């Protein structure tokens, strides 16, 4: 934009109003495209695309294409993989290759690393005997199936894994063994917890929003501040506060002991479990329910209730038939907002959830930071993203994204 142009039209006057509007929006659209949409696209591609094994063992995988899958592969395949493993070790990509194959079939990491190390001194021509001599797993067709599977550049295995499924060597999809099934039950738990939190927030928030919306202005402003203070207070501060209150040596337990209500050795376990997650998350999410409810309720004239009463309705009837239907947009907005926020929550469960209070987002963080299984983290993130996107569209239909206000 040049300010040197004559003031009687400026640079924008050269274009139509439509271009001017687009020109104003474009910088942010480009920014969001680059810093937000592109990262999400990268994550989604990570969840289905992984070229590491394919790049390291190209010849082996080409030969395995022609393999019957029933018998142990022929001698040339052994010779090729010995050579390619040795190269991978020299190029320092062996660790990443072994990790990926190990995820398809546990136990193969040590087979591959040991083979790559020992095969250096080994000589042909009996490659098959040499490799089986290094580790018996080379005589097992399952090993070769695992290598072939891990070599697929495009794969659905992360999504299958995230849904506790796996593809057997004969190609059909089946549930994973019981002891490996984690994610579906965790997804269910997250769903149930999010729904309970939404219900709880509605139950606590509706009466409070009503009180604020129909109080005299002075008092309403004061009461509104009581909702806004937690809304603005740092999430970590509020989580710390709940730890201070709820832990075994914390304020509530100590008070109960001091009052003689519980014995010193039977202090309540209110934190580092699901109770802690529920309490702290209700506290975090409640303002997001109260504020949209309040925004809708303050537009409803109290006269409606009085009119219903004067026509002979009881208070309950007047509320249920006249007031409640008019607040439904607020109920919808608040509930969806709370639900969407709850389903992807990470910080609070991670800090106060202990083992039993973890949710699906904690699993994403675990695979991002600890297990470094980024493909799986991306797949769980992809599932969660799809779910949130659907809710977002529902929200747009019911409330309208353009009508979203803050506070």
């Amino acid at each position, binding site marked *: 934009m040049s300010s040197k142009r004559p003031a*009687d039209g*400026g640079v*924008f006057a050269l274009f139509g*109003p439509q271009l*001017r509007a687009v*020109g*104003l*929006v*474009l*910088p*942010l*659209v480009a*920014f*969001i495209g680059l810093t*937000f949409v592109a*990262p*999400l*696209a*990268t994550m989604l591609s990570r969840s289905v695309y992984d070229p590491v094994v394919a790049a390291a063992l190209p010849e082996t995988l080409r030969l395995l294409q022609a393999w019957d899958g029933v018998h142990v592969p022929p001698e040339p395949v052994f010779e090729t993989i010995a050579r390619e493993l040795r190269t991978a070790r020299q190029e320092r990509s062996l660790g990443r290759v072994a990790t990926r194959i190990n995820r398809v079939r546990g136990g193969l990491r040590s087979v591959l690393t040991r083979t790559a190390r020992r095969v250096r001194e080994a000589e042909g021509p009996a490659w098959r005997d040499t490799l089986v001599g290094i580790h018996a797993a080379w005589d097992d067709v399952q090993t070769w199936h695992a290598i072939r599977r891990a070599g697929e550049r495009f794969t659905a295995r992360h999504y299958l894994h995230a849904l506790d499924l796996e593809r057997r060597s004969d190609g059909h999809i089946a549930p994973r063994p019981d002891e490996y099934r984690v994610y579906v039950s965790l997804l269910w738990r997250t769903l149930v917890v999010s729904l309970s939190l939404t219900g709880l927030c509605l139950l*606590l928030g509706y009466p*409070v929003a009503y*009180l604020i919306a129909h109080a005299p202005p002075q008092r309403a402003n004061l009461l509104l*501040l*009581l909702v806004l*203070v937690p809304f*603005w*207070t*740092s*999430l*970590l*501060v509020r*989580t*710390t*506060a709940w*730890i*201070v209150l709820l832990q075994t*040596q*914390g*304020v509530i337990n*100590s008070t109960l002991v001091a009052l003689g209500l519980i014995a010193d050795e039977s202090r309540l376990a209110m934190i580092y479990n699901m109770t802690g997650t529920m309490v702290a998350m209700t*506290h975090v999410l*409640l303002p997001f329910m109260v504020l949209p409810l309040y925004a809708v309720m303050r537009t409803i004239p*109290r006269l409606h209730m009085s009119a219903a009463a004067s026509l002979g309705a009881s208070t309950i009837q007047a509320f249920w038939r006249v007031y409640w239907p008019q607040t439904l947009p607020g109920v919808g907005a608040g509930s969806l907002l709370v639900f*969407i926020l709850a389903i*992807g929550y*990470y*910080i609070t469960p991670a800090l106060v959830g202990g083992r039993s209070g973890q949710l699906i987002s904690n699993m*994403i*963080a675990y695979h991002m*930071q600890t297990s470094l299984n980024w493909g799986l983290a*991306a797949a769980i*993130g992809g599932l969660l*993203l799809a779910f*949130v996107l659907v809710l*977002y569209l529902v929200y*747009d239909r019911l409330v309208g*994204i353009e009508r979203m*206000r*803050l*506070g």
Partner: protein
Amino acid sequence: MPPRGLWERAGRTAYLAFCTAVFVFLIAPIVVIVPLSFNAEPYFTFTEGMLRLEPAAYSLRWYQNVMGDPEWRHALLNSLFIGVAATVLATTLGTLAALGLTHPALPGRSAIMGLLISPMITPVIISAAGMFFFYSNLGLTQTHLGLVLAHATLGTPFVVITVTATLAGFDPNLYRAAASLGAGPLRTFRRVVLPLIAPGVISGALFAFATSFDEVVTVLFMGGLEQRTVPRQMWTGIREQISPAILAVATLLIAFSLLFMLSVEWLRRRAGTR
């Protein structure tokens, strides 16, 4: 509505008691932290001395502890730098976009709005994972620039929403009036539009800054030791060696957010957009 009978009066009392309980639930945890941060002992409960209001039971030791700790000072500087840079970026881009979004000639408005709001609705854990993958390809992880971009992205929806809301009450005739008096678009923007939307812009900026100042997930995924912010430092404190020093920081942050909240409320009232 006057209560019509005993039952209604009892119901009204129960209702008020319920609401009071909810308000206590909302406020009490935040209030409890403040006196505990002045605890002279390394405990998380009120000592007997504190309850008897003995001056010796209170001290500023945890505050001294925090102020004297180079790690916390470094974290504060990082938080301020990243927060201010992200806010400037988010506010500039967000205000321009809001001006375009309220322009009647813009095609596909709701789709664009949906896109621009999406960073606010997407769970941060997903955004942070995506940003980690994408930014590490560009070598932006473990850099301040990467976190500034990430925080600006998370902050823009707030600016877009608040400024759009302020502009909803804007009279387009003012553009024409300014033009008829010989003002060019830039001059019109500076002298006519900006003063009118300033409250919306400033509260958007405050929201954006607060978002950055409280954000920890992207810092966990993308920041290195050099990029530790105050929330990141608190996260470590809570997870590893929880000491009352955390409560001193928390109290300072509470004071900080009260200041923010009152500014936004004051601006909102001034703008008359509710």
